[in-house]
């Protein structure tokens, strides 16, 4: 019991967070400016638009050892590039279906819409995600086995 508990506290989920430059990255900047604290598990990669996140990036992140992947863009209808996030939603919906099909828990992949004004929301998205991943434990279904 004790050992298990220890293991759980030691496990730090690794999250790759694809943030669009205009909304979500700006929102996460706002969280910073407002000093809203959240866990350090999600490392951001800022992209121009959530619509530019290829399904390959997500699979490759899992393959390279991510326990969770977040894609966050502008709210639907508010995309800086007019409709990029619609493309993102469609494509990424397919990815989550695929992940389920191959046995990866759907909770490991998350999409969120965080505007430049929603620092608090970004912090919460990360906090919740980390919490959920802690329960799930490490992801090894897609992780490349290194010899």
């Amino acid at each position, binding site marked *: 019991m004790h050992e298990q508990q220890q293991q759980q506290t030691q496990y*730090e989920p690794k999250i790759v967070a694809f943030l669009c430059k205009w909304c979500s990255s700006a929102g996460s*900047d706002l*969280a910073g400016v407002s000093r809203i604290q959240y866990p350090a598990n999600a490392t951001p990669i800022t*992209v121009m638009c959530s619509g*530019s996140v*290829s399904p*390959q990036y997500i699979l490759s*992140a899992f393959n*390279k050892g991510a326990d969770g992947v977040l894609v966050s863009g502008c709210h639907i209808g508010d995309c800086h590039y007019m409709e990029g996030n619609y*493309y993102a939603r469609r494509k990424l919906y397919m990815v989550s279906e695929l992940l389920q099909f191959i046995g990866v828990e759907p909770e490991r992949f998350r999409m969120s819409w965080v505007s430049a004004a929603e620092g608090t929301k970004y912090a919460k998205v990360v906090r919740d995600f980390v919490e959920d991943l802690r329960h799930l434990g490490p992801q090894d279904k897609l992780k490349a086995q290194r010899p």
Partner: protein
Amino acid sequence: MTKKRTGVFVCHCGSNIAATVDVAAVAAAMAGEESVVCARDYVYMCSDPGQNSVIQAIKDNQLDSVVVSCCSPNLHEKTFRENAKAAGLNDFTCEIANIREQCSWVHKDRAKATAKAIRISLSAVKRVSRNLALEPIGIGVTRRVLVVGGGIAGIQASLDLANSGFEVVLVEKNATIGGHMIQLSETFPTLDCSQCILSPKMVEITRHPKITLMTSSEVQEVTGYVGNFRAKILKKATYVDPDKCKICDDCAKVCPVVVPNQYDLGISARRAIYIPFAQAIPASYTLDESSCLGLNPVVCGKCKDVCEAGAIDYDMQSRTVTEEIGAIVVATGFDLYSQDHLGEYGHLENAVDGLQFERMCSASGPTKGKVLRPSDHKEPKDVVFIQCVGSRDPARHCSYCSKICCMYTAKHARLYKHHVPDGRAYVFYIDIRSGGKGYEEFVQRTMEDDETLYLRGRVSKIYEDNGKIRVYGNDTLSGQNVEIEADMVVLALAMQPSAGTAEIAKTLKIGRDKDGFLQEAHPKLRPVESVTAGIFLAGAAQGPKDIPETVSQASAAAAKVVTLLSQPRLIRSPTVARVRSRLCTGCEMCVDACPYDAIHLENGKAVVNDVLCEGCGTCSATCVRAAIEVKNATPLQIQEMIGAVLSL
């Protein structure tokens, strides 16, 4: 690929980064990377010595690329790219790793924050190692400006721009310009008459050779990009030709329809054919289609019969006009918070809102400047003014302070006392916020010279009782409960973004803040720009503000437009998509996905128009063969960044 020579510069930002992130450890970790030939940390990288050290290090170490681990790229990407340029590199060989806003400021655990800062920095190192040296794309500029909204903000911006020699198209959705300011009676802090100071500017708008005024019009669609926008504007039929109308009032005299006049907020009535107020601009009657009996001489046609000027045309059609412009100023203003949300406060017969009270006080208003309560048109002797109605109440209404109500309530109390010297004025307030030149003195005069009783506290109960309004509250300064039998109540309702702000923001692709106001690009450093290049903000549409502040912002927005449009050519980011023709099969998936119509096929292969491309990358994520990619954000780069992010 020849071996890269990257330099990494880690900023302490005083203690902003260094307190949480072990900056020396970040530099040391980067020094261990194969492509990194120099890595160091410094207390303020953006200071003069900091920047000089970057330039010097590039020269000393023959660096070909640079990563600065510091604050958000929004702040200093430009600074350090300039440094790279000064040292002889291409701007695009410099990348920022944001380890402040996205790391040190949001974490406390030093070890974890340091590890994350290393991951972020490493991903920037990976990215920069494959960046191409790019030259900015130069484009032509259309030297015309679209101003949306004809309140004082839009009027001021239009005049400043036109006087700087630029052509302006001013679009106003109502039948007249003037906005809310033209409804006001006198204005704080000097109590000068609002119409007297605004009317000359309104007239100037119609007289100015560089300004095209379009009233009863709405912007329907905007395409293009900074310097080269194209706007479709719907000009609604008003059924009266403003050039012919002699504003003789003959038409309104015979019109059988009577409806409330919105300009007087329903206190007065107007006909279906009307002029909003005597000084309206354009100086013309307008026919309100929704209340007219039928735009049909068979049904009524009285107005057309009496119009000697022949200005009335029932067959007038709405039409869409396309305008080419280089920049846009959005000045769509505010509305008052609706009384529908107020529960017991809402819609009491003798409770008027601030604007209705302004109309009553106005000499040209429906009561000819007499304060009369709505129910019986008697002069009220006890008037309660309630501040913060709908403001500063996150649980039920707006969480923000509407900023102007303390001042206009003080003004209202004074105007009331000037009109009804034997009347009693009471003000319920939470705090008095009177920052501004002459503002505090103005409030003091309201209390002392005009003997207004200020009660600190929220109103707890309010209801109509026998022709009176009973107002209960608690004066938190004296600890006493107060009960006032009022003849009339004036509500200082919260200021909200005007109806339609969401739609116009969508049309223009600019953001809104959590309260729905238009979002500025940076709250301190770029307060009049939207996040979209070439679109600027002015007035109450961006947040509650009074006239002096609105005018300042409008002039600032105009100055920003002048700066932009005075450039001979504009520079566009060269991080656009490019096609790897060898891999392209001409499937057209990217052509369909591109939101800008920037891709077409030539000889069976996709070709990108660099001027139209915005670099969003939707095409790249759509292509199954990785045949199209955005320069400096290629799939290969992102893949290596993912690897870096997961490396520890």
